[in-house]
């Protein structure tokens, strides 16, 4: 954290943060501190803290129920934590915003189960995701009705779906839907992409292609990838955070994390 010394804009916003926290938030694009979530008595997050730099790629691993998806729910406004801090870009308090407002700030999300608009063509899926005005009246008359095919095709080329542009998304294979959803994320052009299990149900070749795709995206976007496939995580070549029982168990390079005896104990080993 090289930028930790500069004072964050947080203080100007009058957010009440302790001195220790203030230091930590400075450079981080995403800053989570002590998030706690309880569902009907089940403690899904028990003081999760995490910090992500601009244009950083991070892989999140951990056993089922470790809180990976809940963490993403908190960041995107789907779940409100009981306590904790979640700051985006140092200034935006994510816990005060709803889903569309958070998406508007520049946080995009891909779901575990690929969620695309099945009735729409592949091209229209991208069209609806494209960065631009989101208001109802604007969509009746405005800009989105005059989008040129090129800007859509550009994205479809990146995710390798150009030949399928006029097919209904419902007709795509599982893996292609995953890519389409990643393409929609790209079209949104967010600062941060949250990608939940992108290679679930993919063949080895598709998995490899996805790793390359995500690494390309990570050049100018911050990316958080939740994944179980350790070979894939290794192929991403980024920092790894292992969650366990709603908190961070270990963090570091893939080698150091996978060598950590506690990680082996709860997740890798057995």
């Amino acid at each position, binding site marked *: 954290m090289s930028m930790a010394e500069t004072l964050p804009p947080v203080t100007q916003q009058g957010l009440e943060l302790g001195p220790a926290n203030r230091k930590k938030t400075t450079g981080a694009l995403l800053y989570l501190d002590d998030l706690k979530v309880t569902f009907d008595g089940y403690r899904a997050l028990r003081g999760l803290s995490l910090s992500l730099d601009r244009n950083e790629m991070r892989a999140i691993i951990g056993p089922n129920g470790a809180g990976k998806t809940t963490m993403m729910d908190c960041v*995107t406004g*789907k779940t409100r934590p009981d306590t904790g801090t979640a700051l985006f870009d140092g200034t935006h308090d994510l816990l005060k915003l*709803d*889903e*569309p407002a958070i*998406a*508007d700030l520049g946080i*995009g*999300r891909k*779901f575990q189960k690929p*969620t*695309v*608009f*099945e*009735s*729409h*063509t592949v*091209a*229209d899926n991208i*069209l*609806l*995701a494209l960065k631009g005005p*989101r*208001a*109802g*009246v604007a*969509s*009746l*008359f*405005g800009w*989105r*009705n*005059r*989008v*040129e*095919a090129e800007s*859509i095709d550009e994205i479809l080329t990146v995710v390798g779906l150009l030949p399928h542009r*006029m097919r*209904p998304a*419902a*007709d795509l294979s599982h893996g292609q839907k995953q890519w389409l959803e990643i393409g*929609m994320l790209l079209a*949104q052009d967010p600062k941060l992409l949250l990608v939940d299990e992108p290679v679930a149900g993919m063949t080895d070749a598709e998995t490899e292609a996805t790793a390359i795709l995500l690494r390309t995206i990570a050049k100018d976007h911050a990316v958080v990838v939740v994944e179980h496939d350790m070979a894939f995580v290794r192929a991403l070549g980024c920092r790894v955070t292992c969650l366990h029982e709603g908190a961070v168990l270990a963090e570091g390079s893939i080698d150091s994390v996978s060598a950590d005896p506690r990680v082996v104990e709860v997740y890798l080993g057995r």
Partner: protein
Amino acid sequence: MARTRLIDPKGWIFLAALAAICVIVPLLNLGFPPGSALHLPTYLVSLFGKYLAFALLALALDLVWGFCGILSLGHGAFFALGGYAMGMYLMRQIGSRGVYGNPILPDFMVFLNYKDLPWYWLGFDHFAFAALMVLAVPGLLGFVFGWLAFRSRVTGVYLSIITQALTYALMLAFFRNDMGLGGNNGLTDFKDLLGFNVQAQGFRVSIFVATGVALAIGYLIARFMTVSAYGKILIAVRDAESRTRFLGYRPEHFKTLAFTISAMMAGVAGALYVPQVGIINPGEFAPTNSIEAVIWVAVGGRGTLVGAALGAVVVNYAKTVLTGVMPDAWLFALGALFVVVTLFLPRGIVGTAMEKFGGRRAAATLPPEPEIPPQLAEEGQGS
């Protein structure tokens, strides 16, 4: 970007058919003297006009149900409100020609010992004001109701139930005499509209054509909305509402806009219906009317617009024929029709035709075939 045309082939067929009807029906009625084999009696002109008004209501319902997944079981309320706005204008036109000869107060108010005209009747002696209210009253109710419901993320069955409650509550309210709108008798005995005698043959033909034109305009508005990016987002909301939220859209805005426009269309349909049938009463708010409208759309094919209009005409024609032959059988026939369509023609007449002749792609944007919710399926098995 390859964009869907505003008027597609089935749209052209629809508009051409509508134009033909609007020429042929007046021709057969006015062009041939009564007694001629080709003469179309005036009462049939009004009956067909009623079908067209219902078609516009069905179109309005399809806009929200077919494209946005909002199954409104209360669209009859907007239809009736538009009808009442028109009825109030027609009442004020009676003037001193009423039974009691009171130049200000309609007969029912004299009968109920009203001293003055209630404030909400003011302005209804002007056609322009009444026409504005035909749009504004249903529109405002649709907007407020939609905004509250959609903002609270009420969807599915729960939303359907509260729309049903809405129309039921309005029915009870309009039945009361102190509502100042004629109680259970409603508004009737109309004399003239814009100076034309509402019983006259020429007027009957004119309002029939006006209803046809309104249906065409309603179709074009609905079509414009649904082929624009707005319509694509509406369909996206229908299919995966939470996904649109994570893309930064506010589904409640899109739904409220569609619901409001739809309510206004239903209001216009009601306003055109009232002069043709000569009465508006609280029975129009009855939940069964709204449910019947849902059946028209299902029969014609939801999400097709043209199908909704066609469904309304077909089902109502069947109703006219059947209630003439066997009055008691109609509700059974309607129920059977709904079951048959759901089981064997889940996409309705036009939806099935699109699938058959237009191929997979043409049918892609249609709403997914209705799925029986698991709890209902289980109940079905248990009984």
